């Protein structure tokens, strides 16, 4: 396991919020640094060594990503680098809607998608597109029959996330892909949480577009990618216009150091060492659940096994959600839902879609056991949470301020 000093800064605070973001792996940083210093060229500069070096690094990174998701090895131009998964999702949804405007104006997605899918959908609705937001089953999984029924002749795109950012549930990508292929509809998946943690294969799973981001995978924030199938070729309308980088699909000077860091993070995640690490994270996650469940009145959110290895999301009966978070604040970095820009504290739309009532949805904790967590940390968290929940249920813990601080 890589040596990581990150957790020392807040030694008392244990980080279990890897769905929001992950620490940068020191090995990723080492890969990035040369591209900030000596090899700083603009990869579009075609007339000198500085530019060529940057271009070569980008090319190699593209190949790494391409290999990692089973894209065609001879055409790494299927990888479009972006500033993250938000941009990749926006590009996929709006870019497809615009390019296939003549074919149809209907899209299908899930109620449990990330806001970076739901918001572009709402934008498209305002432009006159129709979007079906499919419900999920109580375990968070899509019922494939519902999808089969929802596809219409004018449907152009189905967008279903690979792994949910709040409950970690893994959708049956292969089945969805096969159905979409059979019905002649394009299939996009937001794999921001999934890359490096579950096998992704765009060929076997018939995926036409896939959004990725580096910062959930011990890589840097601010870089991601959109996979866009070439054969058969998926049309896409660019959303950022300019110098024509990324085959015209995404203009803007490429951030070489970021791209190199992204590829290194993916490479590390796929290494045998880190794949074994995932099994360890799963064990720790299960240890956490086994210790919390006996407290009683604790509900597991999402499918019991079809989840990301480190993910655990629970709703706690008989406690106030805000009080729970507030009382854990100084000990464990967890969240009750997805981190988003507004700092809002409304109950999670994902948990509501699973059928949880508002009180339970509000009293939820989202954990992600990650690469740098230790068994000792998990045991400490188990103690702290158990004590806190018991105290809150007895009414012993009465924080003066009920709302968590909004940053």
């Amino acid at each position, binding site marked *: 396991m890589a040596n990581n000093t990150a957790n020392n800064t807040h030694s008392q605070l244990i980080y279990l919020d890897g769905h929001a973001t992950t620490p940068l792996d020191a090995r990723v940083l080492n890969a990035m640094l040369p591209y900030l*210093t000596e090899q700083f060229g603009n990869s579009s500069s075609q007339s000198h*060594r500085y530019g060529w070096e940057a271009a070569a690094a980008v090319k190699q990174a593209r190949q790494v990503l391409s290999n990692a998701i089973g894209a065609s090895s001879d055409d790494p131009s299927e990888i479009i680098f972006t500033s993250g998964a938000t941009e990749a999702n926006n590009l996929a949804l709006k870019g497809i809607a615009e390019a296939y405007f003549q074919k149809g104006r209907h899209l299908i997605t899930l109620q449990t998608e*990330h806001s970076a899918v739901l918001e572009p959908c709402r934008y498209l609705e305002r432009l006159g597109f129709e979007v079906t937001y499919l419900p999920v089953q109580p375990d968070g999984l899509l019922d494939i029959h519902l999808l089969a029924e929802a596809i219409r002749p004018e449907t152009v795109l189905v967008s279903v996330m690979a792994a949910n950012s709040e409950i970690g549930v893994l959708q049956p990508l292969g089945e969805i892909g096969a159905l979409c292929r059979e019905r002649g509809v394009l299939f996009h998946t937001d794999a921001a949480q999934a890359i490096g943690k579950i096998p992704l294969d765009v060929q076997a799973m018939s995926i036409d577009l896939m959004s990725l981001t580096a910062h959930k995978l011990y890589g840097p924030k601010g870089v991601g990618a959109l996979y866009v199938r070439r054969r058969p070729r998926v049309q896409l309308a660019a959303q950022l216009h300019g*110098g024509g980088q990324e085959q015209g699909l995404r203009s803007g000077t490429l951030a070489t150091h970021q791209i190199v860091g992204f590829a290194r993070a993916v490479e590390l995640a796929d290494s045998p060492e880190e794949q074994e690490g995932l099994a360890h994270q799963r064990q720790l996650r299960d240890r956490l659940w086994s210790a919390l469940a006996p407290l009683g009145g604790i509900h597991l959110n999402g499918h019991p096994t079809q989840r990301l290895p480190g993910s655990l999301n629970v709703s706690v009966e008989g406690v106030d959600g805000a009080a729970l978070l507030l009382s854990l604040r100084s000990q464990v970095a967890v969240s009750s839902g997805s981190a988003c820009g507004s700092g809002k504290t409304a109950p999670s739309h994902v948990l509501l879609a699973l059928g949880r009532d508002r009180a339970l949805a509000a009293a939820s904790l989202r954990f992600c056991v990650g690469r740098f967590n230790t068994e000792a940390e998990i045991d400490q968290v188990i103690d702290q949470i158990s004590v806190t929940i018991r105290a809150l249920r007895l009414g012993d813990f009465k924080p003066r301020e009920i709302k968590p601080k909004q*940053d």
Partner: protein
Amino acid sequence: MQIYLDYSATTPCRPEAIAAMQEVLTQGWGNPSSLHEWGSRSAYRVEQARWEVAQLINAPTESIVFTSGGTESNNLALQGVARTFTAPQHLIISAVEHSAITKTAAMLERQGWQVTQLPVDGAGRIDPKTLEAALQSNTALVSIIYGQSEVGTLQPIEALGHLAQQAGALFHTDAVQAVGRVPIDVGRLPIDLLSMSAHKLYGPQGVGALYVKPGLALRPLMGGGGQEQGLRSGTQPVAMIAGFGAAAVCALAEIDHEPPRLVKLRDRLLDQLQSCPTLKLTGDPHHRLPHHASFCLQLSNISSNAPPISGRTLVKQMNLAGIGISAGSACNSGKIQPSPTLTAMGYTPHLAQAGIRITVGQQTTEADIDWTVTALQQAIALLTDAQ
């Protein structure tokens, strides 16, 4: 020996920026939207950098929206203003804009917008009178490049901005090449929107900002978590933003002495090349970015049917000598085409392929300049002989 003289294409990250980034990457990597301690530390770091970037152009802190770079800032300015209207309006740009403006304007044109391109003179300058004549009652936005990337010409931004605003239009300027190289005060200048990019001022690639005058209505390009006051969703790249902030602090601290040093170096180059009959200065000799020299390669005594030597040929020759310069702006087209900028300035198609750009920066020394002049003369002699 290697000499980098392409500081308009990108600049190396300065140590202060790298230090700021490294600190965030190793110690402050929380998601700024997270409500816990890791998150609030990151959020605080983002706000610190927002203040630092704002200071550089004397803007209120909350007017800075972080983006993925100059290209996105330009797109956000144009598309973001356009999306506040229900029906297409009129947009004015110049004939010497960066492709991030011209391509976005072309996209708006396809959506029904009327787009006017203001002409420039032989030095690449816009006469404010042409803007005055072009303004219409439905002109929603005027977007003019502050300092031109290929020929270095500075525009009369103050006069242009006043005219636009008096006519009720918003005024945007792509100041990607100018920020950090010329003092810019949006508190004083008639500017509503201004694009910046960190990697042109010794910050990292992949981060930029758009100044949005407080109170101005703008629509986002990307939907999602609602970061950046809803104007730019996506997890903020805290490290790059911190690097941008650190670079901005340094640029502001140096604004009184570094640009004059660059002017000296640049003028040393111009002086030594003045006697070179084949390199003619392009752009405006007076209204010019301090670090910027650009030329048109004019081989006078060649037979008229010999193929013209393109700027790119000379640039490649210079690379063999270990000197990195460019032929126009770094963009992605593989083909040699007449530069739209030089064409707009009245150069013939042949000459519009013969531009070269030499841009100096932090690491450039007098010795670099002298050696570059020698290498240029040798390269030109070689190419002339080969004809």
